[in-house]
């Protein structure tokens, strides 16, 4: 599971109102590099929950990758920013698409219910008594 997925995944237990953002505890994560697509990142930026992403990036073992508050669009998309190793857009790309959570746990922020992540796959299956009527 990558952190873009974490940014839209929520818990849906009975009695929980939003179930978002899920807490993240990471036992093992890896980085797998993929090509950066600046147009994609520009499109997705306004739809992200930045705080959830920053918290998840920290939890994944990269506390310095993203600032706590979202940088301005100008900072992300400055001329040539995609070429620089350390630019905000490169960091965002890494956070969203290159960090893979292999082993760990997702935690419902309201109920505290935990969902294990094994071999990269979060198990969001609910027990019968947890399902909404």
């Amino acid at each position, binding site marked *: *599971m*990558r952190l*873009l*997925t974490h*940014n*839209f*995944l*929520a*818990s*849906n237990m009975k009695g929980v109102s*939003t*179930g*978002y953002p899920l807490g993240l505890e990471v036992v093992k994560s890896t980085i*797998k590099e*993929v090509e950066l*697509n600046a*147009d*994609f990142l520009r499109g*997705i930026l*306004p*739809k*992200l*929950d930045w705080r959830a992403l920053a918290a998840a990036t920290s939890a994944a073992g990269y506390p310095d990758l993203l600032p706590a508050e979202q940088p301005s669009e100008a900072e992300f998309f400055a001329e040539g920013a995609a070429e620089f190793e350390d630019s905000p857009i490169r960091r965002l790309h890494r956070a*969203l*698409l290159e960090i893979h959570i292999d082993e760990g746990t997702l935690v419902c922020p309201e109920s505290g219910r935990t969902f294990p992540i094994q*071999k*990269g*796959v*979060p*198990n*969001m*299956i*609910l027990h019968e008594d947890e*399902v*909404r009527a």
Partner: protein
Amino acid sequence: MKLKQLEGLLGGLTQFSNPKVELEQYATGPHIASRMLYTAENSFGDITGKVVADFGCGCGTLAVASALLDAEHVTGIDIDLQSLELAQENADDLELDIDLIQCDIKNLNLKGLLVDTVVMNPPFGTKRNGADMEFLSMGLKAASQAVYSLHKTSTREYIKKAALRNCNALSAEVLCELRYDLPQTYEFHKKKEVDVAVDLWRFVPRARDESTAERHGNKMRP
């Protein structure tokens, strides 16, 4: 990528070896899957560079097809762990990155407008009534741009009404009719091959808030 090339790559995927009848696990054949995704991209631009989710992904055929057509991020969701393991193998074999989530589609909760397109070959609801509409309804809640789905041609009128009235669809359009060649997957299939007519549908979800409306506006720009 050409259609034939896509179909060829999908033809090499590993399918279920022990399909589960209660989940209506029918593999989506390479013929249908390639046409579905090819149409979604070439006629509507709904795959390349998008965030795509495959609901009830099984061994991952539609998810893999999306990734092959350069979806930027693909998630496959299924209740069955064995299917997800197969999907992972299929993605690995083609060196594609696909995220997988184990979840019952009816209990899924996807937030915000991040997911652009949902693709699915839902259970036809023959073993568990209403399963197909449950999938469609969840798909229309999750997608901000479009839902592509397959339904039996015999249910066309019903699907259209239910999608518009009960499932939050702004529009529901049959793009083409395909033949679903079900090989004899289960013992209750008496004939060797069961040829079922299915419709390829494109549903557009109603905008959920202003930012969605704005996105629909953006889409119209060349």
